């Protein structure tokens, strides 16, 4: 089977000469379709940069990235972009405050020239568990959890293969986090989505992900899986520190 995401020797450097900073240093991993891969680490470890390179937010990187076996580089085609969608950390910041939910969901459809827009919006709202009347609301009329559902709907509406989740529940309360994590799991099972989840919370990572990479200073210090993480069979002291937290 072809991996949904295949990253080989990814290196990202910011700045030049003396000031050059290697944010990601020779990172390789692959994620099988329908599974979830977790990147865990503290601020500045490079986890979001890895995601940025895969998402196409960063264009200046070295190495190889392939989505569904198709290598991506430089300028991406529309179908390539539709295949990888992203959900951001802060649902307060990631939705346009003066666009209704319908307007927000319409935008990806317009960009990608998809028809049958009304039905698609109706369907995606249902998938994320929001009532149809929310179409006509503005983000400030929604709670944090509802907003994050809208952000997930916006990613989902292009029927992506891969979802990039950048700390999708860090800005939410515990009880709302549970709802969003449950939704993400249901969506993954129903649609065979592949997830790349970035988080600093080991418990969230262990709950969602099958494979887990622990990052520090731009490198993977440990590559492990759910069972080993839960059993506490970790090799690296840093992994243990993050796992035990406080």
């Amino acid at each position: 089977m072809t991996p949904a995401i295949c990253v080989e020797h990814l290196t990202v450097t910011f700045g030049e000469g003396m000031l050059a900073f290697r944010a990601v240093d020779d990172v390789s991993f692959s994620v099988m379709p329908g599974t979830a891969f977790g990147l865990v680490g503290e601020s500045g470890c490079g986890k979001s940069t890895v995601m940025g390179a895969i998402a196409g937010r960063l264009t200046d990187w070295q190495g190889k990235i392939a989505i569904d076996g198709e290598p991506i580089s430089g300028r991406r085609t529309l179908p390539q972009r539709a295949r990888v969608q992203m959900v951001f950390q802060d649902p307060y910041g990631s939705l346009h405050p003066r666009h209704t939910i319908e307007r927000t969901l319409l935008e990806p459809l317009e960009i990608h020239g998809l028809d049958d827009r009304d039905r698609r919006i109706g369907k995606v709202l249902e998938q994320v568990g929001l009532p149809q009347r929310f179409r006509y609301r503005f983000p400030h009329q929604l709670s944090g959890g509802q907003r994050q559902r809208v952000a997930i709907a916006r990613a989902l509406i292009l029927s992506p293969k891969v979802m990039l989740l950048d700390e999708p529940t860090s800005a939410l309360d515990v009880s709302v986090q549970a709802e969003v994590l449950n939704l993400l799991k249901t969506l993954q099972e129903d649609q065979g989505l592949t997830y790349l989840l970035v988080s600093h919370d080991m418990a969230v990572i262990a709950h969602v992900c099958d494979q887990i990479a622990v990052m520090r200073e731009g490198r993977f210090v440990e590559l492990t899986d759910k069972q080993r993480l839960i059993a506490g069979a970790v090799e690296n002291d840093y992994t243990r520190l993050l796992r035990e937290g406080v």
Partner: protein
Amino acid sequence: MAKPTQPMLDVENLKVRFRTLAGPIEAVRGVSFTLGKEKLGIIGESGSGKTMTGRAVMRLLPKSAEIIADKLQFEDVDLSTATERQMQSVRGRRIGMILQDPKYSLNPVMSVGQQISEMARFHLRVGKREAEERTLAMLEQVHIRDPHRVYRLYPHEVSGGMGQRIMIAMMLVASPSLIIADEPTSALDVSVRGQILELLDEIVVSRGIGLMFISHDLNMVRSFCDRVLIMYAGRIVETIAASELENARHPYTIGLLEALPRIDAPRDRLAVLQRDPSWLEPTR
């Protein structure tokens, strides 16, 4: 339940009300508790009133807020009737506060040493030289390795963990008897978080300070505090020893605990909290 030593803070039926165009809103709706020389956790989700409770004790609320309480006694001061002048001798001097993010709480155009010295000069009325000495001693107490170097640094030159140590040093210089820490580690990385909690614990225990620890993080409060108040919609729904949290009785507390993903107890789906309107009513 851990018996608090003679309470230094006694709060009875505290209410915080905001006047808004749409009528008054009660953010805190009748909260009663006492605090001794202990680590008291206040847990709640956003909007539960936990921060407002802490701020009401400091009387640090916007003008539109009204503080009503049957009793709001801190040591010998009645906080509900104290004048602003009296409050100034309490705030910072006898009750210290640590906020979430040192990046925003420190003055960006003053060196950290100057900021700590200012506290000493203002509250303890000591001279410049002595304030500086006390500051250096305090920086050493919060385990900053090179106090002379750090004294001259500006807030943007220090890391988050170091910034929080500086905040703690600044607050400790006036030797308060009560500390209100509002999400003191939420902006910090996991590995730094542990060190800051250790430092707080060391200080609170060795100096016999009362600590009000406001947080949304159940796991952290469970392992750090002695006693926990769980707040929901402006009320305390349960008070429990931190070690007994596993045996909580209120459905909200149980719901919160079950909604938490746990590495030691993996589940396919997390329990979703079903909110019961009866939780909004006063208990008993």
